[in-house]
């Protein structure tokens, strides 16, 4: 299934999203009037130069931070007014996170790392863990600790962990940033496979191979979404413009 075709039912809907950080007397506008949508089943790459506000946007979409202004809806639910406990529930039950630095707990085995979000959700994850280990090809590494794994294996374990609570949306922050190109390729293939299975993915990346494997990309420059038409990278057909119209 190509999720791009279901873009009419947005899983992320952002309107005039702004984020301003205050450092002393200085105000830094990290995100400026971002308006976009991501549909169910889409695979979207968030690209742009360093300092453009990609991680800020990911923090907002990941309910790790609140926008300064604008509206953000996840699964049709406005999140900007949510209390911290509700944000936590949303992160736990609806979102999966993959970090550039993998974020595996060094004292836990691969299986235990994968089961960690289920512990936070007070669920048993025994069967699900085994299923995910098989899905990411790490059955043989089940009882190994992170330091015994290669970078690619660690990232696959992190992806399995992100999936253990059956999230509706997978958010990834530079998932290939710490990997060599060959290993990065296996992660790109894994993302593509997960998306084919119906998972919606929003990935922040500098990796052109990963960006190109997405259905479309959203480009951020200096906190603003780049005006223009996004491209369906698979069909190379122009898609509906979701950026704000030029003033």
């Amino acid at each position, binding site marked *: 299934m190509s999720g791009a075709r279901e873009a009419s039912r947005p899983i992320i809907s952002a309107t005039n999203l702004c984020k301003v950080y205050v450092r002393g007397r200085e105000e830094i506008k990290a995100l400026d009037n971002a308006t976009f949508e991501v549909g169910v089943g889409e695979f979207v790459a968030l690209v742009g130069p360093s300092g453009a506000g990609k*991680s800020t946007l990911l923090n907002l979409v990941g309910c790790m931070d609140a926008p300064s202004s604008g509206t953000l809806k996840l699964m049709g639910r406005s999140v900007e007014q949510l209390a911290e406990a509700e944000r936590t529930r949303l*992160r736990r039950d609806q979102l999966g996170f993959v970090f550039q630095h993998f974020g595996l707990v060094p*004292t836990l085995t691969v299986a235990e790392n994968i089961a960690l979000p289920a512990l936070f959700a007070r669920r048993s994850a025994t069967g699900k863990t085994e299923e995910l280990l098989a899905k990411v090809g790490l059955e043989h590494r089940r009882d190994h600790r992170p330091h015994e794994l290669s970078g690619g294996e660690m990232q696959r374990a992190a992806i399995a962990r992100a999936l253990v609570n059956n999230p509706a949306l997978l958010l990834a922050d530079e998932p290939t940033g710490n990997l060599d190109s060959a290993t990065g390729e296996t992660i790109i293939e894994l993302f593509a496979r997960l998306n084919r299975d119906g998972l919606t993915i929003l990935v922040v990346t500098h990796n052109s191979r990963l960006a190109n494997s997405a259905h479309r990309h959203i480009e951020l420059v200096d906190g603003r979404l780049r005006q223009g038409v996004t491209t369906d990278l698979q069909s190379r057909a122009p898609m509906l413009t979701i950026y704000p119209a030029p003033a």
Partner: protein
Amino acid sequence: MTWVELSLKEWQRRPLRTSLTTAGVAIATAALFSLLAFQRGYREGVRQELDRLGAHVLLAPKGCPYDAASMALHGASWPCYLKQSYLKEVRTVPEVATAAPVFMAALYGLESRQTVYVGIESNILALRPSWRITGHFPAREGDLLLGSEIAQRYGWHVGQPVPLPGLQNQFGTVVAVLAPTQGADDTFIHLLLSDAQRRFHHPGELTHILVRLKDPNDMDKAVAQLRGCDAGLAMNVVPLAHVFHTIQALVNSTRLLLGCIAMVALLAAGAGVSNTILIAVAERRRELGMMRAIGASSGDIFRLVWFETLQTCLGGAIAGIVVSFLAAREVEALVRARLPFSPSGSLIRWEWWVVGVCLGCALLLGSLAGLLPAARAAAVPPMMSIRNRGGWT
């Protein structure tokens, strides 16, 4: 995986640091455990020892009453003596049920081993109802009643003629052996009073008199009468219950001081635990942020770090209690060497409530010590999982 397992795994991250922190708690808990167990053991030991003596009042030559009690209980050579004629006067006091005269002498043989000879009369049996004798009570000079330990040490048995240790060319016949009493009697050689006086060249003299009252409630009256008689001027009248209470009061005041030291040690250990966990939290900010990002609530993180603190303290407490058990003998020897009066038998006796108090203190300590690190950890924002990489961009 459970929350407890998750926090237990944290021990593997910095094993040396965690072990040292745990050792601090272990030392403090060991001090508290030993103190509580000693208090219990000492009190019981003194009480049992005095009970074993079977007397309510000790009549001894003038001098320190505690030294006299200690010598009567453990056996020693006495520096001065009572006249045997005092006995007659003591027996005229109406409250006195039994007045048992004793002549005691200690000799050192080879290997600095002490042999204690105790001259007694058969009325001592009224004070020692718990004695179980194989054979018969000494009836004539040369008859010996051996404590179980001394019989075992020399391999002597009833009916055997034996040389008297420490007394050259003197012999006796074992006529009876005592069943183990768990007291100093097990190490004594008992013989007839007149026989002991003769062998040690103190005819008509006693080292002490053990007095049992008809009614222990008449203690004050009996003591007043004993002190008031002619012989009372030459004797030290020592009510053993008073000795017990005075010793106990002294030990209690020492215990208070030691208790304060143990509490300070516990507080210092708690501060150490808190500091260590705070450092660990600072080192794990990104990891904690990651946990928050993947669905842990701030309450979950608080609980996780709090459990870790509790486990450190509980682990330390268990280690401390185990070490106290293993080192009980050495600690007891150390304490015994510094006490003016120490009963035979174990000075350190534990009971489950002592273990419970120590574990409870450790848990309370862990609960308090964990509050600040747990609160700090719970306040780590989920953004920390990304921010640490290189700012907020």
